[in-house]
């Protein structure tokens, strides 16, 4: 299913082929992958309609390509199976999604086109699937499996990632404000609003993207949603006493080496040190993996 792609530089890891779980890659999708993930200069190619082999941007050509796994619906087992193939890009298109609509989804919210040879992986899910998947556990499982995340550092990494994902789902894609919980009996209203949003097909199709990259010294994880964003100045820096919300950013800032929020609050990037010892400015410079 995979096809070898010749490398243009002996110093870089061999680019991986683009492969899929579906029968073929729609030409539009292949073009999007090519444009977004580093197949610059390679024209999009349609997939092999017969054999389940994939359309491969740059297949056989000189440009770099990325290996991708596309699936109609994501669950724990499907994602584990996909990760076992070490893809760069894993995308859930959405169950029962209209093909044309799926192609219009902006499932690649973070620019991964820069430095496609750097190690990393990119997971794009619908909100409906991400809500119940414990994505932080899955991603940390994968980082440990790839030898990137020290199991002793896992707990703090997983909590930070969980908080970023929870924010992206609840406040981003579901558009729910914690202020609701501050009203008398507000937690019941909040719970009902959450159920209502999860029943809205347009809402649950919004994408949650998780993009991990690493170097020898650092890991950077971006969590991207398609919500309305928020004013990052309002994110609390300290624990808010009896407050019913707002501790997620406190956890992230306490446990990650660095937290940056971009795109009007729709993208949270967590930076973690990999090596032993305390954080240092040199380590942080190594962590600028998602912004180049």
């Amino acid at each position, binding site marked *: 299913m995979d096809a070898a792609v010749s490398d243009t530089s002996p110093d870089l890891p061999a680019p991986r082929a683009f492969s899929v779980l579906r029968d073929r890659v729609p030409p539009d999708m292949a073009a999007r992958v090519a444009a977004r993930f580093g197949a610059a200069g390679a024209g999009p190619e349609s997939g092999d309609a017969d054999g389940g082999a994939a359309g491969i941007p740059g297949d056989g050509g000189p440009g770099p390509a990325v290996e991708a796994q596309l699936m109609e619906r994501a669950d724990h087992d499907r994602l584990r199976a996909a990760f076992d193939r070490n893809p760069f890009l894993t995308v859930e298109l959405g169950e029962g999604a209209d093909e044309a609509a799926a192609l219009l989804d902006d499932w690649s919210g973070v620019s991964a086109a820069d430095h496609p040879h750097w190690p990393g992986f990119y997971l794009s899910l619908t909100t409906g699937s991400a*809500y*119940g998947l*414990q994505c932080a556990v899955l991603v940390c499982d994968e980082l440990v499996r790839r030898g990137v995340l020290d199991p002793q550092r896992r*707990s703090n990494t997983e*909590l930070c990632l*969980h*908080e970023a994902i*929870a924010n992206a*789902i*609840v406040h981003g894609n579901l558009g729910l404000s*914690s202020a609701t*919980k501050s009203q008398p009996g507000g*937690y*019941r209203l*909040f*719970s009902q609003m*959450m*159920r209502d949003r999860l029943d809205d097909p347009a809402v649950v199709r919004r994408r949650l993207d998780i993009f991990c990259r690493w170097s020898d010294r650092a890991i950077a994880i971006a969590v991207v949603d398609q919500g309305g964003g928020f004013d990052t100045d309002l994110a609390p820096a300290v*624990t808010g*006493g*009896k*407050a*019913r*919300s*707002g*501790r*997620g950013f*406190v*956890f992230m800032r*306490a*446990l990650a080496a660095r937290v940056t929020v971009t795109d009007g609050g729709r993208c949270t990037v967590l930076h973690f040190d990999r090596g032993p010892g305390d954080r240092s400015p040199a380590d942080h410079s190594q962590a600028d993996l998602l912004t180049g």
Partner: protein
Amino acid sequence: MDFKTTETAEATEVRLTGRLEFTDHDRLGVIAAVVQGARTQRFVIDMIDLEFIDSAGLGMLMILQEEAETRNIKMILRNLRGDVKRSIDLARLGEIIAIEA
């Protein structure tokens, strides 16, 4: 998250199992109803089998604390360990809610 409720003459106890996180808001109403129906003045949340709690889960504890205070019930967190203790210590919840080893 799952939970089991027991009531003695001295205390109403809820034992949490699994993960208490942002997907558990529906369960909060059920546990709050336990507080509201308690016939004792002590409400104990046993966390010995709780593996993980996130900031939303901590917010739920704050809501339960308020429900208990409203009814002059003392709420106590018991048997914190591992990642759960880490999160509760980070949030300094011990300054607000009673904690027993």
